[in-house]
Structures are given as structure tokens and as C-alpha cells.
């Protein structure tokens, strides 16, 4: 007896230990699983942030070398430039020397001499086109000499050697512009033409147009004069500009006015506008193109750099110059400006020696350095914007390394209105790429966020009433047998790949609705009316007919009137369109109501994405309603409440947090949904809330653009930012849903 007892006891002990081990094991597994999920989400979060972070990082700049100008004896530079690798720089001096030197230490690499006579001198050199490295020099003896700085690359086994050279694209001949020397000039150049705008010693403003003609025998290009004319200017010009297309010429006067000439006809330039471009008392110190030849930067002696471009005018002149934005450099006055070659950044030096780097479109004041001992004479920015060269009045050259990768992005640029070049007013625009090479990407997240919310809104507009009413009916009124059929079928819809929904919506539904628009509008109006009417008829129906239909299956009968109404509406569609809307409702709408129509519009999205979120909302809401304890409903019914009263007073209030959380989760899903919006919206980032207009959502945008964006570029990082915003959206909605659900659970734990 004792023995038996003790074996049972040991057996129990073993069992108990086993149970404990299993318990522990399960607990650990669950804990690890939970922690892994949280960890994974945290990692996604951290990863997104780590890609996005550099967008808002402060740029860095530091001096890497400082040396005396090479060949100091030849005097200060007339022009300072750097080649693309930022290894070799050059300067042009008064005697016509083009001196190439090593950027890192100032050691001379090679010297060239422009083909000018010994008693002649170069008065000034200007950049004609930074992209083609074309320069123009005005000579003391009169006329301009065009030349290019070019670089041959040689690869040895161990290194790359750069061989600079000077070439003369239009021959070594000086372009003749009359007897007297040129004091100021500007050159506009494109593939076919070249226009020189100048002021000569006599103070006259001249304009000469050339055509580029390639000779048959050699490959050489020569300039052939087409036309010329002279302009009158009452004030002393400070600087001249001609745009690359040679349509507009700008003259900055010492009085602080900027005159805009229409020079499409070179023979008769037409003064468009004279406008004050400086603040009252200050004087202009210079103008410079912002890359692209659309914006003009004006510096003045109060230290302000302002950006101007022309917009279409209201009055009798077609265009007017408009100040877009301005930057304060230093109160000592702007001395020199240079703009980046590939971006819209600007470096401006003040008299005090302070140098300021800012970015126009993002309005970011990036960095300020106290750069030089003397005044800055020349600024050269390497094409890749990684090196900055400054020459000061003491003949010193300083080299600065820049770490400035994403100046284009700023919070105001991403979330605020930005006034882009060639736009009439500031606006929210997303346009990340274009066919044209000097295109400026526009990264406003507002149209995408707007599109996301619009798509989700229309989807919810369609899905919410259907899903919630369906859930109420299924959970509360439907007979168990029918419920057992309906609930799983709707939930299985959730498993439908959204790509199929998107595909159907884009390729079948969108054209179908376009063809049957009046019918669709009728369906939206008449189906609800029809449902109410059928309910009234049902109520009046004699009992004999009613009793034939099993209780709880009344809803199935409703399918009949709905299908009939839909079919009637659709078949009437074409006739109505012909009779009332002149055969085409889309044209009629845009003419009479001013409502645009995209084939792939918010209505399509509402329906297609609505279908995708209905199962989610339905399933959660149905569970919430069904799990309202039965003793509550019977308690209410036992007090003489009708089923409807019970629903409204007891069931819905108790299930409302669950329904709310269902809606939130549905909304989160609609916000994050990608395939449907990608395939059925047209993806145009417009900001129009109209039901017949398209949209572009954050998710579709990431899907479309990420594969073709360059890794680590601003575009790439902004797409990650879009993904991050999306993540936060869904995180937000799901968190709200979860918090509400937890509340609900706590509330009903006591029931």
C-alpha cells in the first residue's frame, strides 16, 4: 500500500515537473515571438529613419588647402574654374594665360596662352555655358574670343591622369563687334545660335546674333552674323544677361533697376519692363543666372541676394518680373555670387569675407563661413558641388571640401507651397523626374498625402455603410444558418489578391463606368431608394406570401429588386446620355459644370478599394456586434424592447468601440493599399477632391518611383520619407484601433 502510494507520488512529481517545463517553454516561445514582432517593427522604423535622416542633416564644409595663386606674378585671375573631378582648376589672367593647376596644392600642371598679340590684353572672361565649359574673353583690342577648357583622361595601371587643354570651338579668330573695346558683355548660347549682348567703350549697348555654321570640309564651326542692333539705356549698366534661348536680355542699372528686353527679333529689341530690384537705398552689385537660365539672382550692397523670374502678366505686357524669394548674406554687401552647376544652390560672398551657401527652392540657409582674409574675388564651385574654390584680393586661394548632399529638401519644401521656376504662383507639386535634363525635381508630399487620404476617403465612403450595415444584419438579424454561409464568404473576399481587384478596376470597371456614367449615377441614387421601397412593399404584403419565406431570409429576397434596378439603370444609361447630355456626359459635365473627368478616378478607387476593405471592416465589426453578450439582448427584449430598440440602445453602444476599431483598421488598410491604387488611379499627383478626378497615393508613388530612383539620391530618400509617412499613418490608425479595442475588452471583462 505504502509502496503504491509512493510510486503515485513520484509519478505525480514527474508529471508536475513536466508540466512546469512545458509551461516555461511555451512562455519563452511566446515571449520570444512577441519580442521578435516588436523588434521587427522597430527595425523597420529605424531603417526608414536612417535612410530619411540625411535629408535634414546640416551640410558640412571645411577648408582643405590654402595657397598663393600659382604664377602670382601674372596678377589676379579674371576667371577661376574647376573641372568635374575637382582635381584640376584653372585661372585666366590679363595677359591671356590659361593656367591649369592642381586643386590640392596649387602646383602648376600646364599653361596655355590665348592667341592674342603681346600688346593686347584680356579685359574680362565670362562663362557662357558651364555645361559645355565654353568661356568668352573680351579683349582690349575689341571683340570677343571664345574658348573651352577641356580634359582628356588617361588611365595608367595605377592611376588616372587628367590632361587639361584649351580648344577654340569657333576658331581662333576674334569675333568682331566693332572698333571699340567691350566693357561688359553677356552671351546666350544654344545648339544653333549665339547672341552677344555688350556695352562698348562708348557706352552703347549692342546686340549681335550669330548662327553656328559648320563648314563642309572640316568639322569646324564658325559663327555667322545674322543681325545686330543697338539699345538705349539711360543709366549706367552694372551687368548684362542673355538667356540661353536668346529670347530675353536683362540689364541691371546702377540705380537698382532691372530692364527686361524681348530680343526674339534681334534687329528690334523691345523693352518689356523696368523694375526696381533692390531695397530702396541699396545699390545692386551684380546679377547671375541660377542654373537653367530662368531665374536671375540679384545681389546688392545691403547684403541681400534676391531671386527673380518672369511670370505671365495681367496687363498689356506678356511677362513681368517677380521677386520670388531673398536671402540675407551679410550686411556688408554682396560682393560675388556663383550658382551650382547641377542644382539650384548659390554661393554668395560678402565684402566682409563671409561666404554664405544657400539653396533657392528649399529656402535653406545651408552654411556660412568666414572664408578669406581679403575680399572674395572669384568663386568656383566644382560641377559636383563637392569642392569650393575662393580667390581673395590678397592673391590667396582657399579650397573647401563640402559635404552637402540634399540641400533641396527642407520641411517647408516637403510640406509647404514652393514657388518653382516657370510657375505662376507657389504650389504643392510632386514631379520627381522629367524628360528634360535641366529639370528641377519637385518634391512636395502634400499631393501624395492628399491623394492617399482622398483614395482612402472614397473607399471608406463606399465600404463603411455597406460593411457596417452588413455586419449589423449578419450578426444581429440573420438566422444562424444563413450567417454560417454569409460570414465566411465575405471573409474569403479578403483573400482575393488586390492585384486582381486593381486589374479588374483599371481595365474593366473604369472603361465600363466611363461608358455608362449616367447609369452608375442612377444606381447610386435608385438602389437605396429601391431598398426603402421594397421594405415598404414587404411590410404591406399579405401574410400568406410572407409566411412562404423562411424567417431571417427576407434579405435574400432583396437581391431581386436590387438586381432589377441596377439592370434598368444600366440599360437606360445610353438613352439618358443621348437625351439629356448631348450624347456625352463627360464633355457635358466639363462644359456645363466645370467638372473634369479622368477615366481612372476616385469613384473607381472607391469601389475597388472599397471591396478590398469591406471584408476587413465587416469581419471585425461583425465579431464586435455578435459578441455583445446574449444576456444583454435578451434582458432588453424581456423588457418589451423591439429588436430595433435593442439594437440601437444596447447592441450598438456596446459594440461601438469594436465597430470604431474596425473602421480604423479598414482605414489603415485603405491608406496602405498599393496595387489597386497603382492600377486604377492613373497616378496623377493632382490636388482635386472631385470624385471624377484621379490621384496619386504615397504607396503607389513609392511602388512606381523607387525602382528607378538612384540609391541614396535625394529622390530615393524622399521616397523613403513617403514610406515613413505611410508607415506612421497606418501605425497611427492601427494603434487607435488597438487602444479602443483594449478599452472595450476591459469594459466587457466585467460582463
Amino acid at each position: 500500500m505504502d509502496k503504491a502510494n509512493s510510486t503515485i507520488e513520484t509519478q505525480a512529481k514527474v508529471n508536475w515537473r513536466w508540466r512546469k517545463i512545458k509551461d516555461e517553454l511555451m512562455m519563452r516561445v511566446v515571449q520570444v515571438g512577441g519580442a521578435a514582432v516588436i523588434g521587427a517593427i522597430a527595425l523597420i522604423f529605424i531603417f526608414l529613419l536612417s535612410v530619411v535622416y540625411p535629408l535634414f542633416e546640416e551640410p558640412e564644409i571645411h577648408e582643405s588647402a590654402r595657397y598663393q595663386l600659382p604664377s602670382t606674378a601674372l596678377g589676379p585671375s579674371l576667371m577661376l574654374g574647376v573641372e568635374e573631378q575637382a582635381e584640376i582648376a584653372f585661372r585666366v589672367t590679363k595677359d591671356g594665360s590659361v593656367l591649369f593647376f592642381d586643386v590640392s596644392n596649387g602646383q602648376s600642371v600646364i599653361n596655355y596662352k590665348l592667341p592674342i598679340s603681346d600688346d593686347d590684353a584680356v579685359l574680362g572672361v565670362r562663362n557662357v555655358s558651364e555645361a559645355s565649359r565654353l568661356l568668352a574673353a573680351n579683349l582690349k583690342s575689341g571683340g570677343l574670343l571664345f574658348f573651352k577648357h577641356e580634359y582628356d583622361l588617361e588611365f595608367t595601371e595605377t592611376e588616372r591622369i587628367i590632361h587639361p587643354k584649351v580648344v577654340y570651338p569657333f576658331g581662333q579668330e576674334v569675333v568682331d563687334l566693332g572698333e571699340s573695346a567691350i566693357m561688359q558683355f553677356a552671351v546666350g548660347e544654344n545648339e544653333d545660335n549665339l547672341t552677344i549682348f555688350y556695352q562698348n567703350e562708348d557706352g552703347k549697348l549692342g546686340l549681335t546674333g550669330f548662327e553656328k555654321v559648320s563648314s563642309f570640309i572640316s568639322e569646324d564651326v564658325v559663327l555667322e552674323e545674322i543681325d545686330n542692333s543697338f539699345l538705349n539705356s539711360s543709366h549706367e549698366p552694372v551687368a548684362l544677361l542673355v538667356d540661353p534661348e536668346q529670347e530675353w536680355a536683362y540689364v541691371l542699372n546702377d540705380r537698382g533697376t532691372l530692364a527686361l528686353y524681348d530680343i526674339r527679333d534681334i534687329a528690334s529689341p523691345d523693352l518689356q519692363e523696368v523694375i526696381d530690384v533692390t531695397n530702396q537705398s541699396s545699390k545692386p552689385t551684380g546679377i547671375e543666372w541660377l542654373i537653367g537660365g530662368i531665374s536671375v539672382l540679384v545681389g546688392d550692397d545691403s547684403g541681400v541676394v534676391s531671386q527673380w523670374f518672369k511670370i505671365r502678366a495681367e496687363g498689356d505686357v506678356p511677362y513681368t518680373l517677380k521677386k520670388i524669394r531673398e536671402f540675407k548674406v551679410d550686411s556688408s554687401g554682396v560682393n560675388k555670387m556663383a550658382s551650382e552647376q547641377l542644382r539650384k544652390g548659390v554661393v554668395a560672398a560678402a565684402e566682409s569675407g563671409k561666404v554664405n551657401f544657400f539653396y533657392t527652392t528649399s529656402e535653406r540657409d545651408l552654411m556660412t563661413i568666414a572664408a578669406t582674409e581679403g575680399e572674395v574675388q572669384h568663386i568656383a564651385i566644382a560641377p559636383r558641388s563637392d569642392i569650393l574654390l575662393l580667390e581673395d584680393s590678397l592673391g590667396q586661394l582657399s579650397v573647401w571640401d563640402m559635404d552637402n548632399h540634399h540641400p533641396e529638401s527642407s520641411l517647408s519644401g516637403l510640406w509647404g507651397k514652393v514657388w518653382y521656376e516657370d510657375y505662376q504662383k507657389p504650389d504643392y507639386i510632386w514631379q520627381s523626374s522629367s524628360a528634360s535634363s535641366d529639370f528641377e525635381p519637385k518634391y512636395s508630399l502634400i499631393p501624395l498625402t492628399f491623394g492617399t487620404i482622398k483614395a482612402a476617403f472614397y473607399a471608406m465612403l463606399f465600404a463603411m455603410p455597406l460593411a457596417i450595415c452588413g455586419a449589423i444584419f449578419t450578426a444581429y438579424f440573420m438566422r444562424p444558418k444563413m450567417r454560417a454561409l454569409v460570414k465566411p464568404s465575405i471573409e474569403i473576399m479578403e483573400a482575393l489578391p488586390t492585384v486582381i481587384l486593381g486589374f479588374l478596376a483599371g481595365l474593366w470597371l473604369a472603361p465600363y463606368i466611363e461608358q455608362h456614367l449616367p447609369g452608375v449615377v442612377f444606381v447610386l441614387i435608385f438602389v437605396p431608394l429601391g431598398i426603402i421601397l421594397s421594405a415598404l412593399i414587404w411590410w404591406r404584403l399579405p401574410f400568406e406570401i410572407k409566411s412562404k419565406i423562411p424567417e431571417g431570409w427576407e434579405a435574400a429576397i432583396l437581391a431581386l429588386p436590387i438586381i432589377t434596378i441596377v439592370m434598368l439603370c444600366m440599360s437606360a444609361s445610353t438613352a439618358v446620355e443621348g437625351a439629356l447630355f448631348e450624347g456625352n456626359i463627360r464633355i457635358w459635365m466639363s462644359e456645363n459644370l466645370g467638372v473634369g473627368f479622368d477615366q481612372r478616378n476616385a469613384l473607381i478607387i472607391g469601389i475597388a478599394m472599397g471591396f478590398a476593405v469591406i471584408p476587413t471592416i465587416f469581419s471585425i465589426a461583425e465579431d464586435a456586434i455578435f459578441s455583445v453578450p446574449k444576456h444583454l439582448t435578451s434582458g432588453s427584449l424581456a423588457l418589451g424592447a423591439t429588436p430595433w430598440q435593442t439594437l440601437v440602445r444596447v447592441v450598438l453602444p456596446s459594440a461601438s468601440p469594436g465597430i470604431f476599431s474596425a473602421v480604423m483598421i479598414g482605414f489603415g488598410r485603405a491608406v496602405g493599399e498599393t496595387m489597386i491604387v497603382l492600377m486604377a488611379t492613373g497616378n496623377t499627383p493632382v490636388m482635386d477632391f472631385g470624385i471624377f478626378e484621379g490621384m496619386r497615393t504615397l504607396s503607389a508613388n513609392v511602388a512606381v518611383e523607387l525602382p528607378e530612383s538612384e540609391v541614396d539620391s535625394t529622390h530615393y530618400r524622399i521616397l523613403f520619407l513617403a514610406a515613413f509617412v505611410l508607415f506612421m499613418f497606418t501605425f497611427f490608425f492601427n494603434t487607435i484601433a488597438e487602444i479602443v479595442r483594449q478599452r472595450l475588452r476591459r469594459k466587457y471583462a466585467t460582463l
Partner: protein
Amino acid sequence: MATTSISSDLFENQASRSIDQEDICITCEDFSLSYGTKQALFDINLKIPTNRATAFIGPSGCGKSTLLRCMNRMNDLIDGINISGQMKLHGKDINTRDVNVTELRQQVGMVFQKPNPFPKSIFENVAYGLRLQGITNKTEIEDRVEWSLVNSALWGEVGDRLQDNAFSLSGGQQQRLVIARAIAVRPQVLLLDEPASALDPISTLKIEELIAELKSQYTVVIVTHNMQQAARVSDYTAFLYLGKLIEFGPTNVLFTAPGERQTEDYITGRYG
């Protein structure tokens, strides 16, 4: 017969009378019910007198709750129910089509085994049935709520915290609240399905006192497993067994001199 364990002093305050002298409230005539193919009630013939407390006793699964639920048609909610025979309230069959179920349930209130207050305030729980009837007059609602709570012996405990959530009450208080909720609509009949089964002896006592109180104004039908309780509170007792009504009569008679062997076995605890 002295075989019963119920001492006769329990019946002291119950006047011995015969069912034929009573005013009849609910009548069952050959009433049968089946859940699908499973028959739960067999040809029940029963008369429940007005303004008396009638107890249903019987072993678990014998059909007490089923019969009780038929009296205000709560069984309508269950799928696949078949009934035959008649269930009459004041002589009128309640299962005909022209009977308005909600009106019936206003006349025949029901309290369930498990307290089921709504997730609302104490006040709103009691006012619920009144609001359903469309009563909006504030003072009238307040008066009726107070009256119900006083009559359900709860006023003293909750009168000063009517806006508290009903879940903050104890189980016994909740059950009395549910009774208050039921009497607030002034039903004629109050059906109580094991109202005290989940309660401690003190709460049970309070409920029993309440029933004794209520039966002067209401016809009370109570299902109970507690013989003492049935003996204490009811004037008449029905004993059901396997879906059949075995015996029905004045409580003191049924407990002291049961007419059937099965009744005697059950009340003396030989089975059940």
C-alpha cells in the same frame, strides 16, 4: 406523511386555499414544445393564479426554464422551435399572430438566472424600460425609478449613487437592480428564473423578502432548485420531471403531502 424534510412551520403565513378559488392569470393547455426533434415539454396543463407566487421545481433539464420562457415568448429567439397546445394570459392565447410580442413582454417581465444589467448607470438601467415605452417626462421617470428601487429593496443602498455604473454593484445588488428594472415597467407577471442561485445567503434572503413583498401586486413565477426557498416564498408549486408536469398544488400541500411518489422522492432528496 412525515417523510419530508421541510418543517411545517415554514408554511405558517400561507393560508391554505384551493386553486379553484383563485383568479387565474396564466393557463397552459396541453402545451408541448420541442427543440427541433428533441421534445422538451409534454402536454403541460397548468393554471397560475394571479397575485400569488408559484414555484417550478424539478431536476436539472426537466424543462422549467423552457416553460417559463414560453410565458413571455422569449423562446421566439431560438431557431427551430415547435409548439403545440395553448398558453393563455388572462384567457387569451399569446402565441397567435395578432399578439404584439413587445406588449406581451411588457406585461410579462422576466428576470434571468445571471444578473444582466446593461452597461449603463444604475438610473438608466431602471429607466430603460420606461424610455422604451416613450416616456420622456423627467419627473415621471425619476418617480418610477425611485419607486422601483424602493420596491426592490435597493433604494437604501444605491439611492445616493444612481449615476454610478451598474457594474459597480455586487452580484446580489445587481440581481435586485434587474428586478427593479423589470418592475419599473409595471408588468402583471414577473418570471424569475433561479434569481438567487448565484447569490450568498444574505442576498438570497433579501430577494426572497422582496418576492414575498412583490406577490401582493404581481403574479410571480419562480424557478428554483432550492426546496426551502420554494417552500418559503411560494403559494403554489409545480413539480416537473422529464418535460412533464408531475404534480401541481398549494405549496404546503405539495411539500407536506405530495400526491405522487416522484414528487416525494424529489423533495426528500432521493434524486435530482
